[in-house]
């Protein structure tokens, strides 16, 4: 590729002059700027008709547009947010019920895995493991709910190893359902060897209500938690379906409550 360096403007310098003066009776005055002398006439429009194929294409697009608009506008209801809703409020695809295990897995990756790691093994000496942890697999969830709600501080023994660190509270960050989901996931993740029962949002709500003054006191310590029975008498029953195969037969070797 090369441009005529003296005249990179015009594809064919002099073409205009030739075109304009075939009879040599006329040429442009030399004192017009050279760029003006060589430029072509101002643009014009041709009158070619549109091809029928293209008109058909436009018509098909309009037809599609009308169909899509009518079908996916939720009946033009101001509060209809689901495009699959038909006019009148009926949906042909009912909202999927919440899968606490899936929601919990997502929350775990976003929220917990930074310390406890995606494989639930924690970091030796820093963050305790959740996989196989006796605190996680306990028959009742009274203690783990409290840990997630208000955090944990000070020394704790998990799977025979000692840890001494600080876990932040999630009380004001996660909802009851989110806490229930993430605990359900952590307790039921069979890939980690955990197989404990699911817990419900009602259970979390009950503990949240019972411990609502806790934030003033600070995070829990292992000693305080051990004083609380694993299964509290006034705890609502879990309503979430337990993960398949989960039973209450998980043996724990936590010290009994005093």
């Amino acid at each position, binding site marked *: 590729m*090369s*441009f*005529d*360096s003296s005249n*990179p*403007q*015009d*594809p*064919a310098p002099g073409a205009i002059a030739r*075109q*304009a*003066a*075939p*009879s040599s009776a*006329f040429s*442009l*005055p030399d*004192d*017009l*700027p050279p*760029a*003006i*002398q060589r*430029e*072509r*006439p*101002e*643009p*014009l*429009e*041709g*009158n*070619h*008709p*549109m091809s029928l194929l*293209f008109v058909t*294409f*436009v018509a098909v*697009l309009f037809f*599609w*547009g009308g169909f*899509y*608009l009518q079908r*996916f*506008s*939720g009946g*033009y*209801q*101001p*509060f*209809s*947010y*689901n*495009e699959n*809703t038909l006019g009148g409020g009926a949906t042909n695809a009912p909202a999927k019920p919440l899968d606490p295990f*899936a929601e919990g*897995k*997502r929350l775990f*990756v976003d929220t917990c895995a930074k310390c406890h790691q*995606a494989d639930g093994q924690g970091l030796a000496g820093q963050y305790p493991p959740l996989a196989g942890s006796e605190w996680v697999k306990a028959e009742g969830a009274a203690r783990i709910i409290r840990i997630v709600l208000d955090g944990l501080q000070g020394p704790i023994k998990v799977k025979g190893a000692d840890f001494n660190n600080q876990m932040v509270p999630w009380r004001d960050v996660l909802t009851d359902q989110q806490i229930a989901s993430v605990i359900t996931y952590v307790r039921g993740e069979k890939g980690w060897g955990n197989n404990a029962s699911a817990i419900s949002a009602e259970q979390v709500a009950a503990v949240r209500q019972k411990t609502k003054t806790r934030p003033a006191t600070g995070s829990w310590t292992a000693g305080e938690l051990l004083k609380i029975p694993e299964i509290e008498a006034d705890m609502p029953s879990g309503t979430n379906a337990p993960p398949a195969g989960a039973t209450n037969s998980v043996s724990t070797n936590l010290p009994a409550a005093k």
Partner: protein
Amino acid sequence: MSSTPSTSLLKALSPSDHDEDLVQRKALLAEIDASCRLPVLLFFICGTLWLLVGTLFALITSWKMHHPDLLGNIAWLTFGRVRPVHLNTVIFGFASEVAIGVSLWLMCRLCRVTLMHKWIIIMAAVFWNVGVVVGVLGILAGDNTGIEWLEFPPYASPILFFSYALIAVWGIITFRFRREKHLYVSQWYLLAALLWFPWLYSSANIMLIMDPVRGTVQSAVNWWFAHNVLGLWFTPIGLAAIYYFIPKVTGKPIHSYYLSALGFWSLALFYNWNGGHHLVGGPMPAWLVTVSIVASVMMTIPVVTVGINHHLTMKGSFHMLRHSPTLRFMVFGGMNYTVASLHGVLSALRSVSEVTHFTHHTISHAHTGMYAFFTMVMFGSMYYIIPRLTLREWPSAMLIRVHFWFTALGIILYMGPLTLGGILQGYAMLNPDVPFLDVVKLTVPYLKIRTVAGIIIAIGHTAFFINLTWIILRQLQPYRQPTRMIIAATRNAINPALP
């Protein structure tokens, strides 16, 4: 907008039969160019300086994406400030200024009138630049409004709007004094853009900054504005330029008036609704997003229409791309208009948007539209217009070659990998098994390629800047104006009523 050329235009088809007419016409063009010289050059030069500033901030921004610590300790140069500075300098500094220059020149030529009272335009150019400087300093100082495409602080926007009012009013007055009855297709786009931009800019400023609407309506207004700045301001001006320069350089008429009309009116009808496709999955009534998706898909009509019209005009003239820089930039830009728009149609679909939105894919798409299409068309226009304003030829063909190849290959290297990286990023973000940090790491190679592409483009910009400085400096040398006599003669002959 009559469908048949007027008789004076038919005459122009065979100029050899109308020698006197041709001389007068060409003399008038010279006179118009002379009247545009100062204001249009001012917009071009300032625009090019903003382009360099914008490119520098683009490189800093891009580098920070893979090395976040770069300049991280200087509050003025943190990511949250350099990115909007990049966006606003290239949009309001470079692109808008060059677009205004091209619009005024095209408007005068197509209306066959000189630019009257050019000092008003020069004043507007000064105000516009003051507005951009105030806005940029405002953002760097931390006064970013946080509204996408409207980041300039509230004390900068009125300056821009005042300046714009001067320009648009003058454009429309020029149109009012037109001596050409037939309205060429470029004029439709220019006139529409001159009216659309103040509508967008004032509505968005009132509804988002002066008296903000509530809640999610803000995001609807914001996307209506942001998408339409591209669609109803830059796109029409870019298309007006292509519609003018392809026939101008090739010497052939535009293929079909009917396609031109369909392309213009379908753009006017559909583009305005497009912004809502950015709200797929957001808390918006379903119908609002659906209307937007339908309008986005219907944009296929103007895009394909314009593409066919330009292609059939170019057919048989592609060999000219070897020699004409204007045509080469125009055709590259025109082809990318088709690519960017059809890509946009795809991205507007719900199933695609679920994956690609909030990823680098969107950034890549925005650059296809703003750079590969619009900016390249503006470069091509400047290559044609500036020699006519300075009465000098471009000093270096080599620099033009460097400019074209570095920007063209640079933007292709930008678009390809980043589009792919955005899609991979989108799928990874939808997969709950992939931790967020892994998604970030996945994008790093593509972000590095983007920085390399940015450096290549910056080299192209530097070549253009050198050539521009060179031609301007040549223009400062004493120059006898041989056109004066003939201009004085023809002015009276053609339109004695005008001063």
